[in-house]
Each structure stands twice: as structure tokens, then as C-alpha cells.
């Protein structure tokens, strides 16, 4: 499996992976803010977010119509749509693409649901390897507590209830997440995951993430040649009027 750099794409793709509650979404969001401030062309894409496929996915989930096979295929459809219509053209145009979850989410989840690993990997073999994959590894208990702290209502598929691991959604979620973590760890070496200690303080992690990205990727290549249009000026407040008077004087 080749990275986008190895395939001579001018853009680069960074993916974050991890369990729900590992804090990866916060980290990739802060990374995006930094890159934007640096004047870099950035695009952010989230798992399961294609407009075209969304209504089918949410219908399937709401009505609990999905089997492991259709769950896998509908997410692959979603990914395929984002990959071919957004990611590839943006990477051709020299963007830094940030993905909150990539194909490894499917490799882990679908296999835990009982789909054959070779089948799942074969379906996603149209996708190239990210130039950098950061795996946020928190202790299972830490992730679980982050999600379960507020005793939220866990959704059926989110809790892995379709696997009939337990009648208690919280217990089911714990077992399900534990199995997903095992799958992730098993593929970590094969796909060159950079493992980030997600038990650390959130700001410390961000420092480490930015340092890593700065070391791995020559960021100045991805700067915008022309600046983005500036937002319209804010209405002047009293202070600035005063200053204008000063300078006029």
C-alpha cells in the first residue's frame, strides 16, 4: 500500500484513528486551526459524512436495518464518495487533507462485527495509505469513562448491540470497544501508525501533534499562493475611533 507522497500526489493526507472518547477529534480540530493560521490549504473530512449516502445510513441505523455486511458496505460507499469527489481532487490540487477516521476504522470495526478481514480490505483497496496516521491510544477505561461519564444514551450500533454481546448497552459498549482496540493494535505496525499517548493532557498532546506534523511534512509547500479574501471589517468601536482622532491630530 503506497502513500500519497509515494504516488506523487502534490497533497498530503493525515488521518487520525482511535476509539470513541480517545480525544482524536479535538486533536485534529486543533491541528486544522493551526495549519489554517499558517496559511496552509487544508481540508477536513469526517468518517460517515457524505451528503449523498447519509440519509440511507441514518435510516438504516435508526430502523436497525443494518447487518454486518450492509453496515460495512454502506460505510464503504460513504468513503468512496468522499474519496473520489473530495479527497482525490484536493490532493491533486496540493491540499493537506485531514481525516477524522480513515479505512482503518472499517478494518477494525467490520472485522469485530464478523466480516472477513480479506473481504473488507479488498473493498477498500482503491484507497492509498495516509502520509501520516496518528493513533490516539488511551487506556480503555479512560476512553470508556469519557464517553460514559454523562451516562449518555448510547446508540444501538455505536454500542455494538447488533453483536448481542450483552443486553446492557453500557456493558456491550465496553466489550465492543475493547475488541476494536485489539484490532487496531494488531494492525498498528503494518500500517505505520504513530501511536500518541492519549492519556496525556490535551494541550500537551497538541504540542506533540504539531511537532510531529512539522517534522514529517514540509509545510511551506502547502501554503496558499494567494491569500484568502479577508472577512469584511468589523464595525468600528469607540476605542478605534478615538485612535483615528489621535493620529489625525
Amino acid at each position, binding site marked *: 500500500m503506497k502513500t500519497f507522497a509515494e504516488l506523487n500526489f502534490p497533497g498530503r493526507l493525515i488521518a487520525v484513528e482511535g476509539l470513541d472518547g480517545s480525544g482524536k477529534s479535538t486533536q485534529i480540530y486543533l491541528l486544522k486551526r493551526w495549519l489554517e493560521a499558517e496559511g496552509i490549504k487544508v481540508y477536513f473530512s469526517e468518517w460517515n459524512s457524505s451528503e449523498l*449516502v447519509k440519509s440511507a445510513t441514518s435510516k438504516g441505523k435508526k430502523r436497525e436495518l443494518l*447487518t454486518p455486511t450492509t453496515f460495512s*458496505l454502506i460505510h*464503504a460507499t460513504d468513503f468512496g464518495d468522499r474519496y473520489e469527489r473530495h479527497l482525490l481532487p484536493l490532493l491533486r490540487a496540493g491540499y493537506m487533507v485531514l481525516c477524522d477516521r480513515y479505512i482503518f476504522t472499517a478494518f477494525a470495526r467490520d472485522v469485530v462485527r464478523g466480516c472477513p478481514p480479506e473481504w473488507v480490505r479488498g473493498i477498500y483497496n482503491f484507497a492509498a495509505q495516509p502520509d501520516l496516521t496518528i493513533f490516539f491510544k488511551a487506556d480503555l477505561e479512560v476512553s470508556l469513562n469519557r464517553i460514559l461519564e454523562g451516562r449518555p444514551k448510547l446508540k444501538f450500533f455505536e454500542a455494538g448491540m447488533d453483536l448481542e454481546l450483552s443486553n446492557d448497552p453500557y456493558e456491550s459498549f465496553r466489550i465492543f470497544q475493547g475488541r476494536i482496540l485489539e484490532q487496531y493494535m494488531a494492525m498498528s505496525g503494518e500500517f505505520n501508525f504513530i501511536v500518541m499517548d492519549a492519556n496525556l493532557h490535551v494541550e500537551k498532546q497538541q504540542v506533540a501533534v504539531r511537532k510531529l506534523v512539522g517534522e514529517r511534512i514540509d509545510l511551506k509547500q502547502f501554503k496558499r499562493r494567494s491569500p484568502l479574501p479577508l472577512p469584511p471589517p468589523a464595525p468600528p468601536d469607540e476605542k478605534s475611533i478615538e485612535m483615528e482622532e489621535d493620529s489625525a491630530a
Partner: protein
Amino acid sequence: MNTNPKPADQCRRFYGHGIPGIQLEQLTGRLIVVEGADGSGRSTQIARLVDWLETGGHPTVQVGLKRSTLVSSELEKAQEGNILSRTTLSLFYATDFADQLENIILPALKAGFIVLADRYIYTLMARDMVRGMDETWLKNLYGIAPEPDAVFYLSVEPEELVQRNLAKNATLDFWESGMDLGLSRDMFDSFIKYQTAIQAVFRRLQTTYAFNIVDANRSMDSVTKELRKKIGALLNGD
């Protein structure tokens, strides 16, 4: 006429990895597939087969492309705008197929029904292969499909197909003409070129999947007669 259960020496199999948790020996029904282009007489032949089989005391169930509860309306909508890329379209159709497979085909086969499929994975594969998709990728994707008991490919010359489609609808379907491929700006030409290409792929697939190729340039009645004869033999275990 009784349906003989599938003999042990004709074990059912999936083309690839199959569906997790399915016991193949429980699938005692029959799966019969009718393939062919629009205008090949597929729907008419299937309606006649249903009549004939049900009159003979066989419970039947019908499936076809784009008929799933899960994604059919979304697929229809996305296709209208012609905005899906080829991989997405392919995976969307695979999702539609898998949904019907697990919710209709497999339960019906378990219950001993005769499932009549108005097109199956071969049309889906042929369409994608004409569009340059990788055959190995498609074979892995559709490794979820059980091998049917019989596949009948209703073969009609493209020149005859175009006449039948125009006589019926006075127009040609965008997708059945392969207009997304840019083969020709002329719809008539595009239809002929596209259907010729599809038939070439079907002939290639035939060597792997051993379809019965039925000459459907003939009258409806003679095609019906041939199908009944072959299906009758299958059900009697000849």
C-alpha cells in the same frame, strides 16, 4: 410436481467469503437468475415463470436490482443527478444487493422457496467492468453472493434491442445507453456500442460462471418453452 431438495452432491456455495453466520446446508430452496438487457424480455419471462411455478405449487419470491428498503430511493436519487463516481455507484449497488440478499434471498432459500432474481451480480459486474473497474476487486466484493442453481442469460442482438426499446418507450434509457461513458453523443450509436460492450463482457463472464445463454431474438413463447424445460429438469433433479 414436487421440488426435490438440493441433492448433497450439488452443495451450495458462496462465490467468495459469503455472509458471516450462514449455514449453507440450510438453504434448501432454489435460486434462479434471469439476466439480460432491458428489452430482452426478462420481466415478461419472470412473470410467466412465477405463474407457472405457483400454479405447480411452488412458493416463489422475486428480487431485482434497486429494490432494497435500505438504499433504493437514495440510489435512484443519486443516479438522476449522475453525480456519483464509479466506485461509489458500484458500492451503492452492492449495498442494495446485500440488503436484499440478507433480508429476502437467504431467508426465502432457508424456507424452501424458489427465488427468481431479475438480474444478479453479473449485470452489476458487467456494467462496472465496461467502466474499467478491476475484475478482482469486483469478485471480492460480490464474494458475498451464493451461487445460483441456474442462470439464464437472455441474449438479444443490440440492433434488435434498440428496436424493442424504442417500440416500447419511444426513447432510450440514459444508463442502458451508457451515456455516462461518452462513447458517442448520439444516443442511438451509444446504445449500440454500450450494449455490444456489455455482451462481450457477459460472454467473458460466461466462461467463469457457466450461464445458460438463451437466444432471446426469438418469440416470447419459444423462450418461455425453453426456460420451462430447463427449470423443470432442475426441479425434478434430472
